[in-house]
């Protein structure tokens, strides 16, 4: 039997019943469009979270003291005094996988300038801190190695601090702000970064040389943490291993003993957020998948009804020489044509819906090629699967009964 002829026969049968064919397709169209749109929305959410993380510095690594027990009591990280400036220097000098390293000590309290005050904290950091956190100067300048060496009383402030302490809009550069009676001269203002994905104000920041904070504000000899950035996000794991090795040696911690510090990277955070968004995507995909299944059942329903409705036609075709397999092939081709056309229309509808979501609701959407391919494949398979039973039923009709069918 000639395949082209069967194709023509099936095509003709469909085009004779355009409305029925379209209604059958509708289920598939909606199903495929739903899969594409839902996954695009899910991926959009994921992508926007990833963007926000990388805005914070995706290769950032934070080292905090921790994991140490004293007399069975687990101590709060901020009370631990195990991280020293020497550790910072060792990391800075020896590490291969870290590009930037900065110590971190923080003193909190009420910032005062003239009549204005604002509760915040001063971060004592190194020069690399700007690069690690991807901060940029808007005005003025950053403190220097010289400032660090001499523990000079200078600071760089974020725009929130500027707005709170200098509400009249005057230029803060050169002005003095005080924390715990220690005066710090403002030498620079950072560019605004807005809120991060956790809702934290990234402009509520004051940075000063770590030596200044340690000696003049806190009078301590230990660091609260070390910030570093790996060469790239992919290298975070190697960098983490390297830091562990260097710090274990510094702290004289042997093999198998628990480290007295904790290393956290943004990777963990992004992994966690990815898990959440993946869950969201899966959920949306499940809903969409169900609608695709319903679309498939729609095909089966219509094909099944149409076998009954077209019994006489089947009888005639058989009497003029169509074999069972020809009838089977015809109905199967009809089902496949419906699902493929439905699939293509569904992809177009899905893309249109994505564009609508993007421009009307302003949601980030990312159309995934794999979701289009997958849903297309699924709907074709659905077409064959759900078209098979009615087609089989049609092919097994007895021509005599079919011809006599009223």
């Amino acid at each position: 039997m000639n395949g082209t002829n069967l194709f023509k026969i099936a095509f003709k049968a469909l085009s004779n019943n355009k409305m029925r064919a379209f209604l059958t397709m509708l289920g598939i169209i909606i199903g495929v469009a739903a899969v594409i749109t839902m996954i695009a929305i899910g991926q959009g959410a994921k992508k926007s979270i990833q963007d926000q993380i990388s805005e914070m510095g995706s290769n950032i690594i934070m080292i905090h003291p921790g994991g140490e027990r004293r007399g069975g009591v687990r101590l709060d990280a901020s009370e631990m005094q195990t991280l020293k400036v020497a550790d910072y220097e060792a990391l800075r000098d020896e590490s291969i996988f870290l590009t930037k390293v900065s110590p971190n000590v923080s003193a909190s309290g009420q910032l005062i300038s003239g009549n204005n005050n604002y509760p915040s904290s001063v971060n004592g950091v190194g020069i690399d801190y700007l690069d690690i956190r991807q901060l940029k100067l808007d005005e003025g300048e950053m403190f220097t190695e010289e400032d660090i060496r001499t523990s000079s009383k200078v600071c760089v402030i974020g725009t929130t601090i500027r707005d709170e302490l200098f509400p009249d809009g005057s230029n803060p550069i050169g002005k003095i702000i005080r924390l715990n009676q220690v005066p710090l001269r403002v030498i620079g203002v950072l560019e605004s970064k807005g809120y991060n994905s956790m809702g934290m104000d990234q402009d509520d920041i004051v940075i000063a040389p770590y030596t200044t904070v340690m000696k003049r504000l806190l009078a301590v000899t230990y660091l609260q943490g070390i910030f570093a950035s790996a060469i790239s996000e992919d290298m975070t794991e190697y960098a983490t291993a390297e830091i562990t090795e260097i710090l274990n040696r510094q702290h004289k911690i042997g093999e198998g003993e628990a480290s007295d510090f904790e290393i956290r990277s943004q990777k963990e955070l992004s992994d966690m957020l990815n898990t959440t968004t993946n869950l969201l995507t899966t959920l949306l995909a499940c809903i969409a998948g169900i609608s695709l299944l319903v679309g498939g059942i729609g095909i089966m329903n219509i094909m099944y009804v149409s076998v009954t409705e077209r019994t006489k036609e089947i009888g005639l075709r058989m009497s003029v020489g169509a074999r069972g397999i020809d009838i089977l092939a015809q109905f199967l081709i009809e089902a496949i044509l419906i699902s493929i056309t439905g699939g293509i229309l569904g992809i177009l509808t899905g893309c249109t819906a994505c564009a609508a979501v993007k421009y009307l609701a302003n949601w980030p959407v990312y159309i995934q090629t794999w979701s289009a391919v997958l849903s297309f494949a699924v709907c074709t398979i659905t077409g064959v699967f759900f078209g098979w039973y009615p087609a089989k039923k049609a092919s097994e009709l007895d021509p005599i009964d079919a011809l006599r069918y009223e």
Partner: protein
Amino acid sequence: MSKTVIELQDIKREFIVGEETVHALRGVSFSISEGEFVTIMGTSGSGKSTLLNILGCLDTPTSGEYYLDGISVRKMTKNKRAILRNRKIGFVFQNYNLLAKTTAIENVELPLMYNGEISAAERRERSINALKAVGLGDRLEHKSNQMSGGQMQRVAIARALVNNPAVILADEATGNLDTRTSFEILVLFQKLHAEGRTIIFVTHNPDIASYSSRNIRLRDGHVIEDTINGNILSAEKTLATIPVNDD
């Protein structure tokens, strides 16, 4: 002696309905030669539908041998019988059985669509010729729902002719038509007969017998009469006597 197209040898067909066995055909034997126009008559229940199904290779006999154009049909599989129908038999049904919303030419092309050996061009050419032969050469693209009963039956006859079959099987082909149109169709059958085609016309209308060359009568599954018609009436002449219906 011309070639034998159909040969039936003691054909029996039984159906089992529940507990009972129904004997539809109780031993039918006859043979039909090429170029004959045979009417098979009988009341309902005489077994003529069953005989038609067997002749048309839609059904197989319970016992007995059936040779169509020299080929034994009894032991053929369903698929082989489908192919045999496609190449050797043309059906004309009482209710035309045209495909809905489909043009005349597409309806006529249908049997050839199931024959992979025939190209699209040849298919179209043969279909056009068949439609011309039934006098519908100017209605190729008319759809089946735009045609009268007589026209639809002509399309159906063209469809039966298009595969150049060994035998044309007509099942009450004039049963749904008014008298005048019936005779028009009968004229067409006589024309085909004159061209040398073999026609088997199953009917319960005794009038038609006088227009055929041979008449086989069935009752209760037996052939009770098999007569050669020495005086074939011309359907064309009869048609001329029927007044044209004006109302």
